[in-house]
């Protein structure tokens, strides 16, 4: 593969697409597929064939169009977006292509949900066909890789990433450039690059969306990383719960191999890199890097103490670079446009953009990419459109089971790594679950503790036994059977787990409890002293059990 050949593929693909008068894009990511977008695509195909328009109109299956709650979504090249489309609407949509849009189905795009976004990692989502590498190349795909391989030294690539200020998007926010240079400097006969696609946080689906919408982008990011650190073997560890993401990656890898973008002597240089897919088997703890490595080695996914960090001794004892899906997806544009460009977006310490999955009791749910530093209030009430059905906002939960709940008093906080940590939550991988007054915060804390208890790998005692005990106390509180003594014990356990657990799962498991104890102490008090659940959630359940 040469730059000329790449340009040639891009050119012929662009010409092929330009031959069509218009393109109708149908979202074929899991969200819309679940609301039957495949039947919409089939109906559009059939309608076009029936009208004999096959050489003028094109129907394209694309990745996530963002606004999952209004799916199935259909867009046209000219920029019209249709919502809640059914197979029966195919004719009507085609009647309006190139004319005034069909009002009945129109989804306004001049709203903050779309206007406040800045798409970098997801710039191709909803635009390229995730199943065709040519379409990705036509959107300047793989040009960053070729530029890096031909024009830049390994040190220059790392320097550019360092300059961008990009931090790990998996949640911990470790500077990516620093991680890369550690692996590059480490000594080993073989180095590995692993993409962590084990997106386990319940309520988070950004990585799924990126993988389903633009798998080649992640592959390109991994290739650039492998070149920079000197790795020749890569793995993508993706969770088994994402069959579509697995399917799209399985299709994308051979496509890249066929074009000589993966394999040996890539682009006529001496750089070799192969990627294998590893499918997880349903263990949340495998999102922790040492547990993930154990799982790739075919073992039980249990973490081990660090140091040594994987950068020194990871997979099979060799230096290993592990980054999250979204981190890799940010790499090609950084190489293409330069680190300074990326560093110009976001806040002082958190650069660039972050992809969030906005869900819960909120009007617009879906995947959004916003610049770092956006206000939480804007996120909930502008981008998310506020709380539906006239109810009032109670809290926003970030960071999944390792994060915390942020109350309305703290909504004027900018979204960046430090500010969220200061509030007792974390940025996490990007799940944002909005809760309204009908949610009981003690029940939420119990829910997350239940999750951590089930997902504890059992290796270290504070986590294995501690999560069980905390779950028991939280259960007693929601059953109105707890005392002040239990509450004191709960607080003590929070401290114990945080300070003595082996890995992030146990250390952060108390976070939802700590943050709700701090911000919603009244709710705990009501359960314990007045035997009353202010949100009416726990009381209802007790009735049901007795009934």
């Amino acid at each position, binding site marked *: 593969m040469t730059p000329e050949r790449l340009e040639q593929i891009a050119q012929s693909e662009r010409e092929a697409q330009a031959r069509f008068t218009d393109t109708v894009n149908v979202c074929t990511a899991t969200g819309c597929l679940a*609301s039957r977008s495949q039947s919409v695509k089939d109906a559009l195909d059939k309608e076009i064939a029936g009208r004999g328009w096959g050489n003028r109109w094109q129907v394209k299956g694309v990745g996530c169009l963002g606004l*999952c709650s209004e799916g199935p979504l259909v867009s046209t090249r000219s920029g019209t977006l249709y919502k809640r489309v059914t197979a029966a609407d195919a004719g009507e949509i085609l009647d309006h292509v190139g004319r005034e849009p069909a009002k009945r189905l129109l989804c306004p795009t001049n709203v903050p949900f779309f206007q406040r976004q800045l798409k970098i990692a997801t710039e191709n989502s909803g635009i390229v066909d995730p199943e065709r590498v040519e379409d990705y190349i036509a959107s300047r795909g793989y040009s960053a890789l070729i530029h890096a391989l031909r024009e830049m030294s390994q040190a220059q690539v790392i320097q550019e990433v360092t300059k961008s200020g990009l931090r790990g998007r998996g949640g911990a926010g470790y500077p990516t450039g620093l991680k890369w240079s550690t692996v590059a400097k480490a000594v080993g006969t073989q180095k590995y690059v692993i993409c962590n696609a084990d997106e*386990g946080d*319940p309520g988070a*689906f950004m990585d799924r969306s990126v993988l389903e919408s633009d798998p080649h982008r992640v592959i390109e990011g991994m290739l650039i990383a492998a070149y920079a650190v000197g790795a020749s073997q890569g793995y993508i560890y993706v969770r088994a*719960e994402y069959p579509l993401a697995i399917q799209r990656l399985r299709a994308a890898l051979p496509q890249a191999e066929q074009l000589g973008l993966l394999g040996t002597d890539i682009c006529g240089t001496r750089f070799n890199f192969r990627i294998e897919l590893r499918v997880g*088997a349903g*263990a949340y703890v495998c999102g922790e890097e040492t547990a993930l490595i154990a799982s790739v080695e075919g073992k039980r996914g249990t973490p081990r103490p660090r140091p040594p960090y994987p950068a020194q001794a990871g997979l099979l004892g060799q230096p290993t670079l592990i980054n999250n899906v979204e981190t890799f997806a940010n790499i090609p544009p950084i190489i293409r446009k330069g680190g300074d460009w990326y560093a110009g977006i976001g806040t002082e310490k958190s650069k660039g953009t972050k992809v969030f999955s906005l*869900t*819960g009791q909120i009007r617009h749910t879906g995947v959004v990419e916003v610049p770092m530093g956006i206000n939480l209030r804007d996120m909930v009430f502008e981008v998310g459109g506020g709380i539906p059905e006239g109810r009032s906002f109670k809290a926003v939960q970030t960071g999944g089971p390792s994060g915390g709940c942020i109350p309305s008093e703290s909504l004027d906080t900018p979204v960046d790594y430090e500010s969220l940590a200061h509030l007792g939550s974390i940025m996490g991988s990007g799940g944002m679950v909005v809760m309204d007054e009908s949610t009981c915060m003690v029940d939420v804390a119990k829910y997350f503790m239940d999750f951590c208890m089930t997902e504890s790998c059992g290796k270290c005692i504070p986590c294995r036994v501690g999560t069980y005990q905390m779950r028991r106390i939280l259960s007693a509180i929601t059953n109105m059977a707890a005392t002040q003594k239990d509450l004191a014990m709960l607080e003590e356990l929070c401290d114990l787990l945080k300070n003595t657990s082996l890995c992030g799962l146990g250390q952060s498991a108390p976070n939802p409890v700590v943050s709700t104890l701090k911000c919603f102490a009244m709710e705990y008090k009501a359960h314990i002293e007045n035997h009353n659940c202010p949100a009416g959630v726990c009381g209802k359940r007790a009735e049901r059990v007795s009934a």
Partner: protein
Amino acid sequence: MATYVAKPAVPNQDKRWKLVDAAMRRMGQQSRGLIETLHTVQEAFGYLDEQALRYVAGSLRVPLSRAYGVASFYHYFTLKPTGKHSCAVCTGTSCHIKGSGELLATAKRELGIEPGNTTARGEVSLVSERCIGPCGLGPVVVYDEEFAAEETVEALTTRLKGWKTP
């Protein structure tokens, strides 16, 4: 001194063992291919039984305890045959606050089993999923391969009643 251990014989004439062998070959007969191989067994046979675990462990030269350890550690692997239909209730955060707890309780009551089990006559397997991703559509239930968005207790009850043999 390493002891040579012969590869165990294929348990029976079932053609599906060929898929399993192919998976192990693809992984270079290395022990690190254990999880991938177990995925293949489960895809082919629906679950992992003792025979399969013994065969895979012997072929990849790992102790049976490790194969069993891996099979029982990961939620995705099941050691029991699954039912004709499956009902998977998503219990992710977003589905939880929109009422998936009630759906799961109803399913448990309706089927008389706990999640991870199959009804006595092998009609339905009940699964409690941790989060399957289409969070905007919660609460989500997956019946066999079909997604049901914003599922209600009534719809769930009707569906399960229809699956049970009278």
